[in-house]
């Protein structure tokens, strides 16, 4: 079975990934500045949730909606929720490691691995959530490559976010992370071989959430991210205005 992609939705998936990464990394820069441990924990959770939820999870399911497999597709709700939680937790831990301990190579390797595994793990859990009359097998080499891409680009994005300053940092780190997430996803999709299921099921009775309904959830997630980005921008402007020389 061939997969056909809606180009506009593919582009949208990249844009959402970059936008979500941008917002999450800007939130993550507040972690070292937190004055108490509870504030620090809150910043970690918020930034990790935006990264995992918006940059990774939303991107994945926009890309899945963009992929026409030639058969109706539903998504198992519990697995879809767990995939989102996996991405959020992995990203939170990765960001916390770098924010707390600096961007030395050992920390970057640990944090990048955690985030990269989170990105890739979310993808394959999302694939496992597919309810459709297909059977999937995976090319192991490409699966491994997808993990490597996710880990390497996560490390690069974390380094850029915490070491550079100014416009270059904001733009570059978000684009790199967006490339990481999308690169991982489409490599993972290339690793999948789909064949028609031997025992077809009646999709009207299959349960799960349809692609159309999932799109509404993704829209809500993106709106929340947009609000978070606006909030960060407003707060930074206010802090800048209040800063005295």
């Amino acid at each position, binding site marked *: 079975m061939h997969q056909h992609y809606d180009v506009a939705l593919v582009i949208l998936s990249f844009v959402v990934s970059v936008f979500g990464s941008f917002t999450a990394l800007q939130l993550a820069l*507040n972690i*070292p500045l937190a004055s108490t441990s509870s504030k620090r924990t809150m910043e970690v959770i918020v930034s990790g949730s935006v990264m995992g939820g918006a940059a990774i999870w939303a991107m994945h399911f926009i890309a899945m909606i963009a992929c026409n497999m030639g058969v109706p597709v539903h998504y198992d709700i519990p697995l879809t929720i767990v995939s989102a939680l996996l991405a959020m937790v992995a990203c939170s831990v990765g960001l916390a490691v770098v924010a707390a301990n*600096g961007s030395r190579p050992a920390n970057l390797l640990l944090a990048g691995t955690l985030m990269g595994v989170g990105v890739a793990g979310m993808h394959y859990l999302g694939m496992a959530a597919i309810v459709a009359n297909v059977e999937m097998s995976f090319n192991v080499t490409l699966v491994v490559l997808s993990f490597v891409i996710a880990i390497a680009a996560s490390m690069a994005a974390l380094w850029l976010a*915490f*070491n550079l300053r100014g416009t270059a940092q904001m733009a570059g780190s978000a684009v790199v992370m967006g490339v990481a997430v999308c690169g991982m996803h489409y490599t993972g999709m290339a690793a999948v071989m789909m064949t028609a299921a031997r025992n077809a099921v009646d999709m009207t009775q299959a349960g799960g959430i349809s692609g159309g309904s999932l799109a509404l959830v993704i829209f809500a997630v993106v709106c929340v991210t947009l609000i978070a980005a606006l909030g960060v921008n407003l707060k930074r402007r206010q802090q800048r205005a209040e800063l005295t020389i």
Partner: protein
Amino acid sequence: MADLTIQVISERRDGLLIELGRIATAHRHVLLRQRMVRDTQGYRLTLELRGPGEEQLPMQEAIAAHPRVQDYECAQGRTENRSDAAPAPGPSPATAKTESGSRPASANTAEVERILPSIAKDYPKVTPWLINLGKSVSAAQFAASMHLAGKRTGTWVYKRDFARGARLSLADAIKRIVVPALNGQVKVDQKGQWIYIHDSGICTPGSTSGCAFYRGFIEGILEQALATPLYFVRESSCRANGTPHCILEVSD
């Protein structure tokens, strides 16, 4: 090379010799002899130093401005040997003559505070305000006032534009924060630990050097940006003295 005797009085003695020794080393002076005795105001530390003549004034300024130095006196040449058991009643190097006005004056804080809001409002176009500051303070207070204005501005710029992110090493802080921050005001190049400032409006040929502002600016940034605060910033040459650029050295 010239010999210099510096006497300072400080409330506490612990770490004083190390801190002032670092300043001397940063200005390429060698410590020939040191003596510390109790004084009515605390402790009197006498340092006999040898180093290049052109570094003496910046070093004196740095030592006099050190927060732990309560009183300061400087004389050319070295003292004759005296017993440590007999505290000197006052700074009196036997074979030296005291330089009149050898103590660098402190900054005119009131004028600096008056100018700073205008610097913040018009930043990065700060040259007119710095020229204004230079005209409103005495010649003796000029360098220290410029330095204070620079330090406050550097700290503010860092907090406003560069605070978010990890603490950096010295080399990374210079490359990623100091040079971009300075480039907002003047054209700047970096070659290793040397920062070249081109066409500074406050250091015009024949005028009084305003490089103390840039030194303070860099110090204000590095104080905030560095993971470990071990560095010095030194004015190496200035356009006001006829060189093509102003050059500052930043090193650890």
